């Protein structure tokens, strides 16, 4: 009895409510997308929404179990859980391929995707490992060990092959970054091998991960916009893609400097401004170099990159999915077409393939328009920021690392999935958490959240 009271008392209600609202919104969206006049009941298990409802109920039941079990077991059994999912990842490679990938154990809709659960087990093991090392031990070997925890499941997932989930695993690099497990020791060992050089740390080395990702992000955006003429409503003439990227960067840099001048301590101010100015110079020259470098490539090399990015001007061919998806999203307008009125992306019309799974953002955007997007983004950003805040208030490093893992995984899914729908990310199939149809992803995301909520509710019980 006491335990349950403490759960109700210590549960992070804002996060829990956001989570539940998202489940309801997701379910409503799926019901609208896959709606069939002949099977109007939402619990009709022959339909996708009926099945999804079952998955949600199962997930809630799992959540209840998670709430009842003492959270200590995740820490204690982190390694066996990790080992078990690795075993599943190996077994799945011997399963028959579905759509060219050996991702499923079991048959049809009752199958599970071990890769989805590998995210949780990897997060748990990473948390356990990082919580076990002290700051002093952050050297080449600890960085390598942490990387190995990620690389083994990543390699197995790449063998399926499942590029989307593979990319999602790189989100753990951000967690390592937050915990100070950067690649700085490796870079230092190279740099300090030069006679006469003795660095304690390198800025590039310690911020290697975010810098890398900023560079990748800016390069991809530049390439995606390479052949596009951007028409801004406030500009009388179209601008080329790279200029658009650079000017956006400039606006953001100026805004951040303003922000710094206003809100930060004087000491931080100069340093921050220098970093932002340097950052702007670096990123805009990167964008410029990528843009020009790409243009100077030979045609066949260009082709290859364009194919990879799904940039071919072939609305009915390779670029079919993205093109249709963007048409659906864009046609939503300010207020949307209304619930159950998605004419482009409903499952029935089938103009956007996979609109119930990886492209479920389309019908949402089409039906609710920009206003709906604000709501959805509000939910997601609130959830992500709340998770970071929760992470930071944990006394236990295990809890903090795990919370960061959950936050970064969700952030990755959010950024890549929606990026796919709006032409900002290459089309790699990963689901939108709590929205996309699919049992494994639904259960895995829910479990992740429930474990986080449970760990957080017990944050004061133990000090680990």
């Amino acid at each position, binding site marked *: 009895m006491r335990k349950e009271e403490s759960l109700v008392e210590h549960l992070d209600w804002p996060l829990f409510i956001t989570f539940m609202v998202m489940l309801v919104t997701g379910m409503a969206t799926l019901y609208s997308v896959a709606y069939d006049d002949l099977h109007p009941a939402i619990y009709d298990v022959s339909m996708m929404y009926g099945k999804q409802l079952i998955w949600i109920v199962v997930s809630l039941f799992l959540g209840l179990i998670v709430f009842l079990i003492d959270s200590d077991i995740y820490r204690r059994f982190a390694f066996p859980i990790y080992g078990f999912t690795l075993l599943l990842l190996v077994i799945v490679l011997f399963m028959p391929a579905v759509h060219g990938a050996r991702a499923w154990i079991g048959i049809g809709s009752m199958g599970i995707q071990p890769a989805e659960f590998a995210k949780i087990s990897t997060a748990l093991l990473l948390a356990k490992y990082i919580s076990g090392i002290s*700051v002093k031990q952050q050297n080449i070997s600890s960085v390598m060990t942490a990387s190995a925890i990620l690389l083994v499941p990543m390699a197995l997932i790449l063998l399926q092959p499942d590029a989307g989930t593979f990319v999602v695993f790189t989100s753990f690099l*951000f967690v390592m*970054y*937050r*915990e*100070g497990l950067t690649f700085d020791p490796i870079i230092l060992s190279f740099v300090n091998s030069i006679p006469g050089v003795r660095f304690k740390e390198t800025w590039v080395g310690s*911020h290697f991960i*975010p810098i890398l*990702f900023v560079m990748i992000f800016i390069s991809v955006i530049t390439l995606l916009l390479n052949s596009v003429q951007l*028409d801004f*409503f406030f500009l009388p003439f179209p601008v080329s893609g790279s200029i658009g990227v650079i000017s*956006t960067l400039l606006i*953001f840099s100026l805004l951040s400097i303003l922000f710094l001048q206003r809100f930060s301590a004087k000491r931080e101010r100069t340093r921050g401004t220098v970093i932002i100015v340097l950052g702007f110079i670096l990123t805009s020259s990167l964008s410029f170099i990528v843009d020009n470098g790409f243009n100077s490539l030979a045609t066949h090399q260009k082709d290859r990159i364009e194919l990879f990015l799904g940039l071919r001007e072939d*609305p009915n061919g390779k670029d079919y999915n993205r*093109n*249709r998806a*963007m*048409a*659906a*999203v*864009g*046609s*939503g*307008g*300010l207020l949307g077409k209304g619930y159950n009125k998605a*004419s*482009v992306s409903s499952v*029935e*019309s*089938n*103009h956007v393939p996979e609109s119930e799974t990886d492209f479920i953002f389309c019908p949402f*955007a089409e039906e609710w*328009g*920009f206003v709906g*997007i*604000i709501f959805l*983004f509000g939910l*997601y*950003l609130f959830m*992500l*920021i709340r998770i*970071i805040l929760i*992470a*930071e208030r944990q006394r236990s490093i295990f809890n903090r690392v795990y919370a*960061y893992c959950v*936050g*970064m995984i969700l*952030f990755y899914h*959010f*950024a890549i999935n*929606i*990026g796919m729908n*709006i032409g*900002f990310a290459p089309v790699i199939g990963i689901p939108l958490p709590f929205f996309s149809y699919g049992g494994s992803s639904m259960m895995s995301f829910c479990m992740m959240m429930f474990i986080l909520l449970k760990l957080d509710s017990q944050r004061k019980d133990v000090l680990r």
Partner: protein
Amino acid sequence: MNFDIRRYVILAFIILVGFLYTFRLFYMQVVDDTWTLRAHEVAEKRIEITPPRGVVFDRNGMKIVSNRTYFNLMMVEDEIKHLDTAAFAKLIGWTVKDVRNRFKEIVKGEGTYYNKITGKRTSNYQKIRKYPFLKELTLEEISSIAPHLENFPGFYEKVTSMRNYPFKSGANIMGYLSEVNREEVESDRFYRPGDNIGRSGIEKFYERELRGRKGIKYIVTSALNNAIEPFADGKYDTTARQADPLKLGMDMIIQSYGEKLMKNKKGCIVAIEPSTGEILAMVSAPSYDPNMLVGKRNISENYPKLALDKNMPLFPRPLQAEYPPGSIFKLVQSLIGMQEGVITEDSGFPCDKSMVGCHNHPSARNVAEAVQYSCNPYYYAVVRRIIQQGKKKRLFADAEYGLNKWHRYMTSFGLGKTLDADVSGQRPGLIPDAKYYDKWYGHHQWAFSTIRSISIGQGEVKLTPLHMANIAAIIANKGWYYVPHFVKSIGRKGPLVEYRTKKRTMVNAKHFWPVIEGMRRVVNENGGTARMARLENIMICGKTGTVQNPHGEDHSVFIAFAPMNKPKIAIAVFVENAGFGGTWAAPIASLMIEKYIKRKITDKEKEKRILEAKLAYISTPGQ
């Protein structure tokens, strides 16, 4: 080392992506229209509904062109299951091989379109689309197929409409429809491949008035092209509207009577109501049953036959055949002579056969007698005076001056140019002017003596039968005419404005009386050349002509109007290779006039003689 500051880096990432995506979505959804348009393109289909073509009535309110329901047998490959080809072939009366070939043909042919970008023919065939397997089945044909279609899933019947001509007449005038070609599809957005367009005659001239307005339905479709629901609850849909009916001035009774009279003859009849310019009948012989050229099936079967027929049934003679007018031209010459003052109505000339041959008759003492006797030497003298007026010192210059003046008169009669009637395919005929002869003989190298044969309507002069009938109408009106036309009204609107303006000739009304008197005598006096056209109680004024034909028997011509005092009909009859004008053309004209005014024929013997006459060996299909 404290890594707490790094939480802000991560938070910055999250917020940055959030804002970036928000801006992007605001741009995509609210600012930029591109994706909305693309979505319309992807998900919405325009369905066009072609209304039945406008119908056509004659002046008595009889429906002379209507539409008949036909059926297409459509197929959707995706829905065909376990097709028993043999049974299906038996049902539609084909061989199994034909059915297989038709399938191949549809896959290869029906779905292909010309891709402008690649310059290749690309197959657009889709298994989920409907394609016509059999086209233009009649009610009888489909009624033997339709009851069994439930055994053949994937096959449907679809209603369509095509022209129907209940009177089987006026083929050359009405024209026919055929499928649009690529240029027409590209130049006019109304048409889609497979649509029909007026190819000739009235159907072509009044294409815009007859085709109506297409209905457009917008529907939301799936990627498989299935209709899901009307777009925006049908807010932007328009309904198809059939065109207003055309009412013709044509009198179907005399039109079909005329065609009956012209059986086994080559030539034409054109009848005009002088007071309005409305064309009452326009017979071209030989002709064909207009129903022979309805629909693709009929056209592909019958068109080659008609086109290769040496009697040229497709040739619209009243509009396109250019004949020398012969003696009927003398009427116009008399009028010009009197108006120019080179003769008066009482001028007489001896019948001097030294210049040109003539038949035996007393010398004409005035214009009326000259018309009555159709005296060739008289008109040599008259036209010489018109051409050589002595206004210029040199003979050649004088002839040039005179001929040009004469040409202006002729033009005022609507001759030597197309009359611009509301039917496509008219020819201008030929009235030579000075320039014309300069080309032949050289400048100032010719005089009246060179060109004298024009005075009796031979030589270079050429008129179409429509021109000839219009001369009769002008004389009936004493000097003016409305441009001959078919359409009396379109829906509630009257005829086009160009048919409501009087055209005046350069000849005063008073000069017409002696000519009309002469024409009366031609029919009604002994010694006239068209006594066979005489009617008991209708005063016909007419003029015969016999057109010399170097290739064979002379052509028989007759123009007339009746009754004399209050003309109701002006008519021209042209019978090829029939000899003297009074023998064949005149009685045909009188039968037409009597039929039009009295609706019955009193002289059955005359009618029988015409109906039985075979003046040409014609074996036209459908006649």
